[in-house]
């Protein structure tokens, strides 16, 4: 359990984190979502006591991080930037960290195997790819078998296989009853991995919600249909009270009718369907709508992109 209360961080004139309060409960994956520069990493550094909050308090399992004598048993963290000396081998990197908390060699070997670095354990981490570096960071986080895990942008720069591995790891850690806190600027990734979402923009809390709720909230869900008899189908659907918009690519964008209903109606009237799909990619769109006002560096026409997001 991570609890932040009124957390703020000021760097000179800019307020990186602004009166942020949230709770990360155990047994779930909580996604920490926001555009680049919205204060996610700063918040995570404050949780670990690396940066001191300008005001406010954050605790992990009821205690401030600095109060822990052997914190690796409580919290494991993967930070965004590489936090290792490139001249040290993977094994020695973990061994040095493990020693500080009284963790033995067997556990170091165990986590190296767990993240798939067993065969390169004696190589210097400076030569590691981004993905291997991430794996080593995760191995460090797992050293103390902690109840709370924090990963800052873990899938950044990973290949598809690595992304899948992280996804499964994160889910299994939460299934074991641990608190998992995961940051990302990609809604699509979060919608697959996270149960709960904490969405921030410009250092402020926008919403604390669940993925399911956010999906329901999404205003842009629709059914997409492609048919050679599109006009006939549109007339039939409109007669049933659905709203049909003809798209530029000759498809129909239907709201107010389920895909089941559209399919039935087409069959009953002998309409050929070449495509029938539910478009629910609106999480991304909902996220962009939520954070539109708080994106720091918005490209010209960004609003248009956000609306056309699906």
């Amino acid at each position, binding site marked *: 359990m991570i609890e932040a209360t009124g957390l703020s961080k000021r760097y000179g004139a800019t307020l990186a984190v602004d009166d942020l309060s949230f709770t990360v409960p155990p047994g779930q994956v909580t996604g920490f979502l926001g555009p680049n520069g919205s204060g996610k990493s700063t918040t995570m*550094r404050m949780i*670990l*006591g*690396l*940066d*001191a909050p300008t005001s406010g308090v954050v605790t992990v399992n009821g205690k401030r*991080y*600095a*109060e*822990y*004598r*052997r*914190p*690796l*048993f*409580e*919290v494991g*963290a993967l*930070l965004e*930037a*590489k*936090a*290792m*000396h*490139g*001249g*040290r*081998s993977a094994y*020695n*990197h973990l*061994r*040095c*960290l493990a*020693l*500080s*908390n*009284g*963790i*033995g060699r067997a*556990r170091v070997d*165990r986590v190296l195997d767990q993240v798939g670095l067993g065969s390169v354990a004696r190589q210097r981490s400076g030569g590691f790819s981004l993905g291997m570096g991430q794996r080593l960071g995760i191995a*460090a986080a797992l050293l*103390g*078998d902690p109840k709370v895990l924090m990963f800052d942008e873990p899938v950044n720069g990973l290949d598809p296989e690595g992304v899948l591995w992280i996804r499964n790891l994160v889910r299994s850690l939460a299934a*074991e009853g641990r608190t998992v806190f995961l940051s990302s600027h990609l809604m699509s990734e979060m919608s697959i991995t996270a149960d709960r979402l904490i969405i921030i923009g410009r250092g402020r809390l926008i919403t604390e919600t669940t993925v399911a709720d956010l999906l329901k909230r999404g205003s842009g869900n629709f059914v997409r249909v492609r048919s050679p008899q599109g006009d006939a189908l549109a007339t039939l659907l409109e007669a049933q009270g659905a709203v049909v918009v003809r798209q530029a690519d000759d498809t129909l964008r239907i709201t107010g009718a389920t895909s089941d209903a559209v399919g039935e109606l087409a069959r009953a009237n002998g309409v050929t369907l070449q495509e029938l799909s539910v478009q629910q990619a609106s999480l991304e769109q909902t996220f962009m709508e939520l954070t539109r006002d708080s994106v720091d560096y918005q490209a010209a026409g960004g609003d248009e992109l956000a609306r056309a997001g699906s």
Partner: protein
Amino acid sequence: MEAIASPQSSRKPLSAFADILRSELCKLRTVRSTYWTLFAAVTFNLALAALLAIFIPGQLSAHEKATFDSTRVSLGGIHLSQIAFGVLGVLVITSEYTTGMIRATLSAVPQRRLMLATKVIVFTVTALIVGTFSSFAAYFVFQACLSENSLRSSISDPGVLRALIGGGLFLTVLGLLGLGLGAIIRASAGSIAAVFGLLFVPEILVQLLPTSWKSTIGPYVPMQAGSAIFSVRPEADALGPWTGFGVFCLYAAVALALGFVLINRRDA
């Protein structure tokens, strides 16, 4: 979940301290820069001792031979090996910041001053062992390579043993000055520049002062004060060996104290 070593509750604070010490020793032992700098330091000390023993005697006048400080000259390599010790002292702390390792370190040991204290201890012990060894080794190499018997000294002569131990002490405290400045500056290049700026620049500036000032301030500049401990026949206005060493320690202590204050005040 798999069961591993029990966490804090069952452990005593002393064992926590010992664990952090082990961790810092592990860090020092597992990077190449440690071996390179220490190897360079020992090599400088021994090679210079041999070269000086071979080439110096032929160039000395009778008067110079009479006042020859055999011990001090045998430790001439210190002028080079001090660079290696200063660099190592700096790197012990700045490599944490430049690589980002500091974030992993402080996530494992949030008690920052305790972490810095264990770094100081691990470095001090290592530097004392290597520094003292290389001083004694340089002395014996010098004596062995010396062609003229009249210039030889014995380790039982007054001040010789103190000067040899002093060589190790000087190198260690110089490294600690580097560690302190490294903790303040946190960047490797800047810290190394600061250490050697502090050692060499005042030394040069003092030469520009009027004689009366030079003899008053001169002995207190870091290099002058520090080298008293490894001289057997000190220059006229030099501080006593232990007084000079005390002054030298003071410079390192101020840098370290500032490092200890700042490490808790700044974001990592």
